[in-house]
């Protein structure tokens, strides 16, 4: 009997026992669906973050307080020792090679008349901020200038969510909103950046660094952005920053990271995440495989008489074995395909809310894995079926 006949036999058996077939593949379907969906979520997250960071400009170097991956004593909290003087120092010494811009951050409440917007990420930035953070887009009005900042003006550029929450479609330029009870005049609106995993990047507002320091009495910096004048200077500038800052700070007080390093850090975090989630989903696939074996074994018992008959009619043991093996394979392959379609559909639906990306390897891997499970868990029932004694099988009721 050739493979085409075996396939036809198995398909006939699968279609004849629709309900049992559907129940058999349920586990595989769920397993593959979760593999596809989870991988799509993590990959989407990665591509979103990567896109956000790349949008900042490839010459970018960050200085942040504390040490990534160390320096924290047991239960201890790292103390932020990065101060405006550090930024000023960098600015002076790197004036020919890079642009330096310091940032302070605070979560606060904004208010306009009787409307308020809580949990706004308020950043105090310098006037060169849009030049360094290239993804900063102004859709209405303008950004503040150096003279605005030096004159100590209380002006604000708001994100689209803030605009939506405080105003209803009316023009916002020139309106005064309250930032923690102090009035600021709106001079611009930022373009949308989107949100991911519940974090809305558009619920933000930018005010001059000087105004922020004065109002909130902040004396520590959250970030110093440094943008090298050319891509091949990035490494050199990074080394200089470390050298300059080390004069006042210890090694554990700050981290200098380039765009490239950040991207590779994110890549390694998401690959661990992919592995962990993919592993959990793979376990559910194995459970699905055990389900296939279980039902195939039941099916062999249920069809004992049929097997006996087939043998009496001239089926060789390997014909019976192949039929059951191909049946298990077809079922798990079918489960794989349905799971892929389902997982892809769910990923597409989820894509309406958060970025999801379905990498081809997750499709290939989960299909291959479900076929493998079909082979592994189909062998035992198939061998049992092949070894049945035809006389006893025929007598079986």
């Amino acid at each position, binding site marked *: *009997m*050739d493979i085409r*006949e075996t396939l*036809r*036999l198995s398909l*006939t058996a699968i279609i*004849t*026992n629709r309900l049992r077939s559907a129940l058999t593949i349920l586990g595989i379907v769920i397993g593959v669906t979760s593999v596809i969906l989870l991988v799509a979520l993590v990959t989407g997250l990665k591509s979103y973050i990567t896109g956000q960071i790349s949008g900042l400009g490839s010459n970018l170097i960050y200085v942040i307080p504390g040490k990534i991956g160390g320096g924290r004593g047991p239960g201890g909290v790292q103390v932020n020792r990065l101060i405006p003087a550090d930024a000023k120092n960098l600015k002076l010494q790197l004036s020919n090679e890079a642009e330096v811009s310091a940032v302070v951050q605070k979560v606060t409440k904004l208010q306009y008349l009787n409307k308020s917007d809580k949990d706004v990420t308020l950043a105090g930035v310098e006037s060169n901020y849009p030049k360094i953070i290239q993804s900063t887009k102004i859709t209405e009005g303008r950004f503040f200038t150096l003279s605005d900042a030096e004159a100590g003006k209380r002006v604000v550029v708001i994100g689209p969510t803030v605009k939506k929450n405080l105003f209803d479609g009316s023009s916002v330029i020139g309106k005064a909103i309250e930032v923690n009870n102090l009035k600021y005049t709106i001079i611009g609106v930022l373009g949308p950046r989107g949100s991911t995993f519940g974090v809305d990047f558009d619920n933000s507002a930018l005010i001059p660094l000087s105004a922020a320091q004065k109002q909130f009495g902040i004396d520590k910096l959250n970030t110093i952005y440094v943008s090298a004048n050319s891509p091949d200077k990035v490494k050199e500038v990074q080394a200089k920053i470390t050298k300059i800052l080390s004069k006042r700070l210890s090694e554990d007080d700050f981290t200098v990271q380039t765009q490239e390093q950040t991207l590779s850090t994110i890549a390694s975090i998401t690959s661990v995440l992919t592995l962990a989630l993919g592993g959990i989903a793979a376990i559910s696939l194995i459970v699905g495989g055990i389900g296939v074996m279980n039902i195939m074994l039941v099916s062999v018992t249920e069809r004992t*008489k*049929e097997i006996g*008959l*087939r*043998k*009496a*009619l*001239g*089926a*060789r*043991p*390997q*014909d019976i074995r192949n039929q059951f093996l191909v049946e298990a394979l077809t079922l798990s392959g079918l489960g794989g395909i349905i799971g892929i379609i389902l997982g892809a559909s769910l990923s597409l639906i989820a894509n309406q809310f958060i970025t999801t990306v379905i990498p081809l390897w997750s499709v290939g891997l989960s299909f291959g894995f479900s076929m493998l499970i079909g082979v592994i868990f189909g062998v035992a029932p198939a061998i049992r079926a092949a070894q049945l004694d*035809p*006389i006893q099988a*025929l007598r079986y009721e």
Partner: protein
Amino acid sequence: MSLVKLEHINKLYFLDSDLSFQALKDINVVIQKGEFVAIVGPSGSGKSTLMNIIGLLDQPSSGEYILDGLDISKLKENKLAQLRNKKIGFIFQSFNLLKRTKAIDNVALPLIYAGVGQSERLARAKKALEEVGLADKLNSLPNQLSGGQQQRVAIARALVTNPEILLADEPTGNLDSKTGEEILKLFKTLNKTGRTIILITHDHHIADNAKRKITLKDGEIS
């Protein structure tokens, strides 16, 4: 040359390591091509045991079985399966049709294992069903057919490979007497067209339909 030749056949069933039961004792039978033979005897006399040996589903404990000139004791499992497919047509008391499978596909089943292509399979199955008078039931499912019709489908399935022997074990056992007679009439017709038929029954009246009777009692021919 004889079709079936059984010489000094014994069959022991091992019930325990040291307890055995002899179901067949020194059986000597010769059946020629074209014969219609009944093997008759009370329940437990060893009829089915003998049929399983003739049908190559089981091997004798000792003795020689020559089927169509072939000594079957030397054959391997796969060769036996092939011989069952080519030379034997089984007809069972309980029909043994595949449920949820159309009559024509039930009949075509042995041809799958004979390596016959699909279109030829269906053509031959159709012809076999016509031969047993079921030309209008090709696409019926077993549960849409009467007992007599189901047994006809089973006979068509036995005929479709054009076997040397039709081997029927209590073929009328599950049928009422009128339907049973129709089936026996069909056997006679088939025998007239040259088929060799071995009919197994506990009922002497049924056995009278055959041209020759072999009587079994307690595993022995009497």
